């Protein structure tokens, strides 16, 4: 699917009233749940301050932390691999599968592997990746794309999911559309695979440099199956996911569940350290993935986007996201965080319209558990996009150049004031031209009949 840019994609999705209902319902529900559990903690702001500083510190000392993590994972019996880009990471996974004669693997939901298109890359090697998170399974079975970080099938309702399951996994049986029955069907379908497939791929929420512990946070138990029963486990972790100290988890495990699902704690959190004889996989591989993250790190304003812990609180509060839904962002990372992460990871020329996919209202910053100043980064990226010519913007540059000349010269400025007065009334709405869209929704301020300067000169 080729990208058409946010404005066009948003217009397309806004026309889908079912989608808008699903998204509005979902985002308002999670918003309320989050607000309730966040209000319970008297020290929420202190936790946010700590969370922001922990991640900023990890990024500022990243070379040291990555080397520490590599050492401690290796000491604990794991293997550490490095990947400059998605293709390298996918090749490592394919090689691990091929060397062990595996044509199939089970996968726990991972944004990093979605980002690098791992499933498609493996398919090209004849290796089939089975998504085990319920929503990811729904997305995979319908050959669709995720539309939300936390609930990727948020755009589908129960009737659509029932029809999908009957078409794909129900083996001819008729299903009820009750969520309980649909979840039961997913359990039935995946159970045998959990018990028998000997290779699994996961992402990582956190990787602790001090102890070599990798942590997956989830709800359904599919993550526990993937990291526990297979003989071989491969974890793909973006380099920005490292935490320096074990103790840092005491902050993150409070911030993440409350911001994400609006729970005091999600059902299952699994921190494991390397390989343990008699408990879990016999072989553990950790792939440390760059894939554009160092480009983000090089931008002093934009690098704060790497603090993101993928909670999706910013999506649910965003007045833009909660109307357009996730697909309009044309990226694995939708919503406000996507609007600053995608253009930085892929290059501004790949997603030049995303920094404008926001009203700059600031709600995303208010809820961000690691205090990413998303509006600040949006404005910064808009500036970069215009300066680098990625956003077109030649007309805008000329316009502002002209304004600068007018404001610099008394003669031109007073001339412009006189010209503006001539246009009073009939020109309040611009009937055509590049700015007509702007005045469609807004009134131009009416110039006064007499300017201050004229009044000053004319006073007796």
């Amino acid at each position, binding site marked *: 699917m080729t990208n058409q840019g946010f404005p066009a994609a948003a217009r397309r999705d806004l026309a889908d009233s079912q989608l808008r209902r699903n998204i509005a319902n979902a985002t308002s529900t999670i918003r309320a749940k989050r607000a309730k559990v966040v209000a319970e903690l008297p020290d929420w702001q202190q936790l946010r301050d700590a969370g922001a500083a922990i991640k900023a510190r990890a990024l500022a000392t990243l070379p040291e932390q990555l080397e520490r993590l590599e050492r401690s994972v290796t000491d604990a019996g794991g293997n550490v691999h490095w990947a400059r880009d998605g293709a390298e990471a996918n090749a490592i996974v394919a090689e691990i599968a091929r060397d062990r004669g595996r044509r199939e693997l089970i996968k726990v939901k991972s944004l990093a592997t979605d980002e690098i298109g791992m499933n498609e890359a493996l398919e090209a090697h004849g290796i089939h990746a089975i998504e085990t998170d319920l929503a990811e399974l729904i997305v995979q079975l319908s050959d669709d794309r995720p539309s939300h970080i936390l609930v990727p099938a948020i755009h589908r309702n129960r009737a659509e999911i029932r029809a999908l399951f009957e078409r794909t996994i129900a083996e001819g049986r008729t299903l009820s559309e009750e969520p309980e029955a649909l979840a039961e069907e997913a359990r039935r379908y995946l159970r045998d695979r959990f018990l028998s497939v000997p290779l699994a791929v996961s992402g990582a929420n956190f990787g602790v440099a001090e102890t070599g512990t990798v942590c997956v946070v989830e709800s359904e138990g599919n993550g526990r199956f993937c990291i526990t029963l297979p003989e071989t486990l491969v974890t793909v972790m973006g380099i920005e996911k490292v935490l320096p100290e074990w103790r840092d988890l005491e902050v993150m495990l409070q911030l993440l569940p409350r911001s994400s699902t609006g729970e005091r704690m999600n059902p299952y959190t699994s921190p494991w350290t390397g390989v343990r004889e008699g*408990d879990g996989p016999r072989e553990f591989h950790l792939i440390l993935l760059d894939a554009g993250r160092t480009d983000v790190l090089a931008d002093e304003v934009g690098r704060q986007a790497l603090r993101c812990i993928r909670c999706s609180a910013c999506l649910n509060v965003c007045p833009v996201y909660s109307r357009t839904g996730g697909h309009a962002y044309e990226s694995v990372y939708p919503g406000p965080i996507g609007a600053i992460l995608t253009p930085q990871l892929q290059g501004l020329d790949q997603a030049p319209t995303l920094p404008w996919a926001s009203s700059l209202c600031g709600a995303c910053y208010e809820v961000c558990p690691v205090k990413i100043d998303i509006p600040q980064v949006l404005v910064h990226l808009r500036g970069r996009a215009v300066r680098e010519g990625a956003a077109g913007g030649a007309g805008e540059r000329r316009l502002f150049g002209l304004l600068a000349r007018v404001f610099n010269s008394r003669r031109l400025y007073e001339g412009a004031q006189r010209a503006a007065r001539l246009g009073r009334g009939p020109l309040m709405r611009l009937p055509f031209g590049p700015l007509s869209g702007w005045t469609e929704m807004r009134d131009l301020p009416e110039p006064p009949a007499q300017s201050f300067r004229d009044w000053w000169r004319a006073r007796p």
Partner: protein
Amino acid sequence: MSDAREAVLARVRQALGPSPTVPEVPREYRVAAAGDPGGAVERFCERVAEYRATVTRAERGEVEGALARICRERGTRRAVLAPGAPWRLDGVETVADDALSPGDLDLLDAVVTGCALAIAETGTIVLDGSPRCGRRAITLVPDHHLCVVGAQQVVAGVPEAIAVLHEAATARRPITLVSGPSATSDIELRRVEGVHGPRVLDVIVEG
């Protein structure tokens, strides 16, 4: 592969420049447990129940009776017991975890374990791979988990728990934090208890 390692590290160093500012971490959030162990136990029971797990209070020494009663009510016939769990299960065929395969575990009705500790504020039980908790597969595959929590094992909040678990992490024991039965909200955000992990969680609080 070492090419990639050097390349990524070099890119990181270049991106950061020669002397990046390293912020201190302000830790002004609540850490010290307020000395109210009784209150913590009450709060733990209340919050576990909110996840739709079932909480049973048992006097010291009456855990076996509580376990037997729950198993009777749920129709449990065969259960695996964590190797270090000191309780006898009356009326239930007990299977030792002698490297049971996932398929073997799938045929059992229930698993009985202790825990490493429990967190009051979040209603969480924590398993740490010690003999009382068993290896991870036994608390994952059977559909019903009975977990015995000693009142003295309940800590107030997440920071206290993470401090205690540092030992398990450095000893490379795998840790699982369990907050209620497995659940999904993936369909219209309607919470459904019980997807892949145990669908029934019974927490027995002793003392």
